[in-house]
């Protein structure tokens, strides 16, 4: 078993968890707990007796980013906490979680995986990714806990993701500056010592990231805010996962960042301030869960401050406190969840007599809370002793050290006081009515295990030496041998004295609790942290809206004005810069003049037309003229494409036209004038720009390359086609995807929105109104033409590589055949065009991708393979072209099917009318309206 396998196993557990939870429900907690316990065992087995274990798998070799994993002392400590506490929390969840278990276990197990990846990562980019994953996990876990959780979850995400941005800044700066992504190398880089400014900024960014994650002032608000999450989530978040990620980051960077004064300054001041503030807030709360939440804020403040001190002793204390805190805080939260479940409340004003109502669990709770208060002989006492001692011996000097230690003692007084509140207010008194204990056994076991572990860990603290000391050694770059072994009793010293002061002060606070409560029963700050975050959030959104207001308008013309003016300005500027080089040479060919005249006539007609049909015809004139332009410029392929597209455009436009009114609404005179001025200006600029920018330039080197090498490289003599399917096939593939998306979007639009208008039957009764007779010519023509056109389309596809043709043109030709079939049909319904257009488009894209994958055989995606078979040159470029064919064909089919077939909205109206005896209806109406009901079902099926 390797580290990589450990991580993979953890991910697999997350994948399996929902599958197990589906049939098992909440009881899947047993499975996940067993899995995490097994992973813990593997972790312990993997741990080398000394030194560290490293592995690496290339991930993004181009950027030198690898999946580097390292198991050293520090990683081991945190991984143990993540997996061990995780197993216990899962055990607890088995009884606690009742509904929506699959998602819960998926996220919790994935959370464990993300944390494991974070602490094992030896690549700074991998570490960052894992860091963000934990943010997302906690967001989702809070979000799904209740319908009201969206706001707190959102605030949590904003704060922690904001910290993630700070970390991203630090990571980027470090990678750029040190030139490696390997975390160990980054941390050992001399830049930390040699460039104080750089080191200071990066250290501040890292500290900022850790502060948001570990809920330090002023980012503490999210943690109590996140209390909407269920007890197991809170227990994991507070004890082992989310907030400990910040602590891990600080300890990991401790040695390197301690080189700059910024680091201890921020950490110690922020940490101590948060510790005291959190303790005071915890004293104010009557909701047990909130009390524990602020206790976490306070305890983490203490941890952050002692990491800031930076000595090996301080880091030893921090490492031990991480373990102690994980135990007593998970025990506390799980206890609160159990109480809430059985007593129906978690408010200490309503709880009483729990000692007699649930003696066993209460005893465990007392044990846990005593650890939190730091009473001997528990683990919490041992770690607090070390913290106070390390602070008193701060490298900043005796006076500063004493000040820090005293501030920490003040926070500890609060800790003792609020811990006592939990016990004193809820345990004594008349026993409460509780719900039966059945089904909560595993919850009680989990509470008991963590509490007892805290007690045993205190009495036999020396057992933790192999876990804690290497962690501190790795965090400070010292040898394990240089560290003092852990012990519960250090003799009478300053730390013990301060501890005694803390306990005494706390006891007095408990004794005088009525006064303390009165003194604190008010708002200490003019606003709360949650309100501050909420206000910052709404101010940001309002600011964005104000910026958006600058450009928000309902007039399309206003939106178009900006790009038009910018392009015009650019064109004029460029024209002015290149005055001397305008390409007027070459004379004026007569044909060109004729083409230009045709274009102008078409444009004028399109602009002047007052009917929709007229403007479509005018647009057609322009399109055909442009096709002639292409032909005269020596581009048969392009001209052919343009010609076919023009035909199909007109077909589709006519399909649309029958749903729209016949005439346009006239623009106001002012509107016409403004439009005219803009239009003439734009036209003039475009002319000048074209002359100035392009002129009669010589063949570009790229163009020459293609002309010279096309045949040699690809075996094709149609240079344009070789560019499309060979040289620049990836571009073409992208275009196919665009076509596919267009077909999908059309389908979605017509499925989701109601088409306007119907198929108005305006044809007056007369010789042309009978569709059967009316279409006789087209039908007679179509009969021989359609097969010919389809054959031609196939031929064009096959010969495309060497002569005008290719996938695009062939598909357009084929689609034109179908369009002819459609136009010749007696009615919409009769047109034999119901083909699965979306699958055809999709298969086209897949075929193109598949031919690209074949190219991998020759070393590169989309590189065509060549073979000569019986004297015929074959290439996979033809397969690619077939994909092009199918994709283009599918899109056009989609348009004709979606727009041309009788659609959802058509019919009730037509049916009514046909039924009314007074309305004189031409024959078409009867034939069009009668099958309307059938068509409805037919079109509903069509998009599939």
């Amino acid at each position, binding site marked *: 078993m390797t580290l990589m396998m450990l991580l993979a196993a953890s991910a697999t557990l997350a994948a399996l968890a929902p599958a197990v939870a589906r049939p098992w429900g909440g009881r899947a907690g047993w499975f996940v707990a067993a899995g995490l316990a097994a992973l813990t065992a593997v972790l312990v087995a993997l741990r080398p007796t000394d030194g560290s274990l490293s592995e690496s798998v290339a991930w993004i070799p181009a950027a030198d980013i690898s999946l580097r994993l390292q198991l050293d002392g520090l990683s081991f400590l945190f991984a143990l906490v993540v997996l061990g506490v995780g197993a216990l929390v899962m055990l607890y969840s088995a009884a606690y979680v009742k509904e929506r278990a699959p998602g819960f276990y998926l996220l919790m197990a994935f959370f464990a995986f993300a944390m494991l990846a974070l602490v094992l990562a030896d690549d700074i980019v991998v570490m960052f990714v894992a860091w963000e994953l934990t943010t997302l996990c906690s967001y989702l876990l809070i979000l799904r806990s209740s319908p009201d959780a969206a706001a707190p979850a959102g605030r949590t995400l904003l704060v922690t993701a904001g910290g993630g941005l700070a970390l991203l800044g630090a990571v980027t700066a470090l990678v750029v500056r040190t030139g490696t992504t390997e975390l160990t190398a980054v941390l050992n880089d001399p830049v930390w010592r040699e460039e104080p400014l750089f080191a200071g900024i990066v250290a501040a960014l890292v500290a900022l990231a850790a502060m948001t994650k570990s809920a330090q002032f002023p980012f503490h608000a999210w943690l109590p805010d996140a209390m909407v999450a269920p007890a197991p989530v809170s227990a994991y978040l507070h004890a082992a996962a989310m907030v400990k990620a910040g602590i891990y980051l600080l300890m990991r960077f401790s040695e390197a960042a301690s080189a700059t004064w910024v680091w201890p300054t921020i950490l110690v001041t922020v940490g101590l301030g948060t510790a005291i503030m959190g303790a005071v807030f915890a004293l104010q709360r009557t909701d047990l869960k909130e009390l524990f939440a602020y206790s976490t804020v306070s305890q983490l403040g203490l941890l952050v401050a002692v990491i800031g001190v930076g000595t090996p002793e301080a880091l030893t204390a921090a490492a031990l406190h991480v373990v102690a805190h994980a135990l007593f805080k998970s025990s506390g939260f799980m206890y609160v969840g159990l109480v809430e479940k059985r007593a129906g409340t978690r408010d200490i004003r309503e709880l009483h007599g729990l000692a007699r109502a649930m003696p066993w669990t209460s005893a465990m709770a007392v044990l846990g809370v005593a650890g939190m208060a730091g009473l001997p002989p528990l683990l919490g006492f041992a770690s607090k002793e070390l913290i106070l001692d390390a602070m008193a011996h701060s490298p900043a000097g005796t006076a500063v050290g004493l000040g820090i230690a005293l501030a920490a003692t003040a926070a500890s007084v609060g800790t003792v006081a609020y811990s006592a509140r939990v016990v004193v207010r809820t345990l004594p008194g008349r026993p409460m009515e509780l719900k039966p204990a059945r089904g909560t056994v595993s919850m009680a076991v989990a509470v008991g295990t963590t509490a007892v572990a805290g007690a045993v860990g205190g009495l036999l603290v020396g057992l933790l030496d192999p876990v804690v000391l290497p962690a501190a050694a790795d965090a400070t770059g010292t040898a394990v041998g240089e560290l003092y072994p852990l012990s519960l009793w250090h003799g009478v010293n300053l730390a013990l004295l301060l501890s005694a002061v803390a306990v005494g002060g706390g006891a007095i606070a408990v004794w005088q609790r009525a006064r303390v409560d009165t003194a604190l029963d008010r708002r200490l700050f003019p606003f709360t942290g949650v309100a501050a975050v909420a206000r910052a959030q709404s101010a940001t959104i309002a600011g964005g809206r104000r910026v958006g207001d600058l450009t928000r308008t309902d007039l399309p013309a206003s939106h178009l004005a900006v790009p038009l003016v910018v392009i015009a300005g650019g064109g004029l500027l460029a024209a002015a810069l290149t005055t001397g080089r305008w390409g007027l040479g070459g004379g004026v060919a007569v044909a060109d003049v004729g083409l230009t005249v045709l274009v102008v006539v078409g444009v004028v007609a399109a602009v002047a037309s007052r009917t929709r049909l007229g403007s479509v015809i005018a647009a057609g004139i322009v399109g055909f003229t442009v096709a002639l332009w292409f032909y005269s410029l020596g581009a048969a392929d392009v001209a052919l494409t343009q010609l076919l597209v023009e035909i199909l455009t007109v077909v589709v436009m006519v399909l649309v036209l029958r749903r729209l009114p016949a005439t346009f609404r006239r623009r106001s005179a002012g509107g016409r004038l403004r439009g*005219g001025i803009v239009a003439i200006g734009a036209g003039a600029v475009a002319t000048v720009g074209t002359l100035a920018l*392009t002129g009669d330039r010589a*063949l570009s080197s790229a163009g020459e390359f293609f002309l010279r090498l*096309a045949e040699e490289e690809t075996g094709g003599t149609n240079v344009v086609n070789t560019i*499309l399917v060979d040289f620049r096939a990836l571009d073409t593939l992208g275009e196919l995807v665009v076509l596919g998306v267009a077909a999908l979007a059309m389908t979605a*639009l*017509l499925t989701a929105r109601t*088409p306007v208008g119907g198929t108005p039957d305006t044809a007056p009764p007369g010789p042309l109104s009978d569709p059967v007779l009316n279409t006789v010519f087209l039908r007679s023509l179509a009969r021989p033409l359609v097969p010919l056109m389809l054959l031609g389309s196939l031929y064009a596809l096959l010969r495309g590589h060497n002569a005008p043709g290719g996938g695009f043109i062939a598909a357009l030709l084929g689609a034109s055949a179908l369009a002819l079939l459609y136009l010749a049909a007696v009615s919409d319904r009769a047109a034999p065009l119901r083909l699965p257009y979306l699958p055809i488009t999709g298969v086209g894209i897949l075929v193109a991708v598949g031919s690209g994958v074949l190219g991998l055989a020759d070393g590169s995606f989309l590189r065509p393979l060549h073979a000569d078979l019986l004297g015929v040159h074959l290439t996979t470029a033809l397969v690619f072209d077939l994909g092009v064919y199918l994709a283009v064909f599918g899109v056009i089919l989609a348009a004709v099917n979606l727009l041309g077939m009788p659609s959802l909205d058509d019919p009730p109206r037509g049916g009514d009318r046909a039924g009314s005896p007074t309305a004189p209806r031409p024959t078409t109406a009867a034939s069009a309206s009668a099958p309307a009901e059938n068509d409805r079902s037919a079109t509903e099926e069509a998009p599939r």
Partner: protein
Amino acid sequence: MMLALSVGALVAGAAYLMLDRTFLRVIIGFVLFGHAVNLLLFSSGGILRRTEPLGSGPDPAVTADALPQAFVLTAIVIAFAITVYMLVLAVTGRPDEDAPTEEAEEGPTPDPAEPDAPSDTDDRSGADDRSGAAPRTTDQESRA
């Protein structure tokens, strides 16, 4: 010279049509604009060499640049797909903005949302309502 004039005429027509409120005219403007850009692409490859880039060993001195041709070829197809998409937009959602009131009066097209066809007197006001609501529809469509 003539090509540049063609581009200019196309751009002028496109600009005029795109500034209109009627969606179909905007679409036609878009089509014209596409033509203009395609011709511009051609002109960027030089327009004096006009022999087809076909056959073995083309002579670079007289053969047209194949690269802009390839660009334009795919651009035409893409522009076609987008045109069709916009046409679909034009006929979905609410009735087209500028339904002339006369037409609404003589041959009312009841809203799918209103099951009861309005009476003759109501019809006039109904048509007015629709045209009053019209600009909003346009904007939704063009934004989409």
